[in-house]
């Protein structure tokens, strides 16, 4: 039972952060596309802004890995 709960915690850690990243990137992506259409010189800034939410899912992945390593 304990193993199941640990696996569930790991799944939540990666799953929820992935959803949050996807949502944030979809909004930043569409807003960025709008900005780029008018100001193409801002492409560098837009790429950085788009990459920022990626940290959430990376941290989620790290946390999930740490949780799973606890099983052993």
């Amino acid at each position, binding site marked *: 039972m304990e193993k199941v709960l640990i696996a569930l915690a790991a799944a939540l850690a990666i799953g929820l952060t992935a959803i949050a990243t996807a949502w944030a990137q*979809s*909004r930043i992506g*569409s*807003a*960025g*596309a*709008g*900005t780029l*259409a*008018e*100001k193409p010189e801002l492409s560098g800034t837009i790429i950085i802004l788009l990459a920022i939410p990626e940290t959430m899912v990376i941290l989620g992945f790290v946390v999930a890995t740490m949780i799973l390593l606890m099983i052993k």
Partner: protein
Amino acid sequence: MEIFERIEDRGYPTDYLLSRVRSRRMLYRNFIAGESPVEIWRRLLKEYRWIYIQMNETLRNIFQRFFIYFELRTIFMCLRYKKGEYEKIEELLYFSLLSDDLKELLMGSDIMTAIGGVGDAFLSISDRFVGLKETFIKDGLRGLEQELTNVYLENTIDSKLHHTIKDFFRYIIDSRNIIAVYKHIRWQMHDYPSFVNGGSVREARLRRIFERRDISGITTLVQKLTGIMTDAGNIENSLLKRTTRFLRKAARDPLCIGVILDHLWKCYVETIEAEMIH
């Protein structure tokens, strides 16, 4: 008959358009210009059409009443140019969002058929628009313009709207009512002005000001509404500034439709300024 042309929804996300319009607001200033009233209005319609095409279905539903309100002026200009200036009508309607059927009627030679078509198109919104032909016969083009605009505004304010759009129309109604009272007093007219219901200023108050022929009452009212010191010659300008200020405030929220509304209004104000210079 439909009022608007059916334009395919390209499915662009709302954030895309908000962001694009925000950039556009900063990049372009005083870009509504032209040599004639037709050219200036055409430039405005071009911008409005471009924004309408970029909108998704949800945004189009929110803004439809706004676009129809400004297309009313296109219709009135076409009707005015019916006395032989057909090339101007064609030029005006090029970027218009009006349906092809309506455009065809407006380009035709018969003014009564055109007014009948406009009446039929607006009857699809509400049956309050009945009797436009009779109004034209009785009061002429000016009477028709006033009647159609007033009924449209009343019908719009009674319908379900986004709160920012509703507030915008409330400001428009206030402006129309106050300017109507001012003109009636200034031109010493005896009939009551035809007020549009739904504004934030009560009709009874406007009637009282009119009965007393009280120009200072109007300036006090405008000062109270706008917070700007106003003299009688500056009423219209102060009321325009009031709407502009409200929309600037609405546009501060980057995720709100206020950004688009503010841009559309800014284009309209530029149009008025360009027409005055012309």
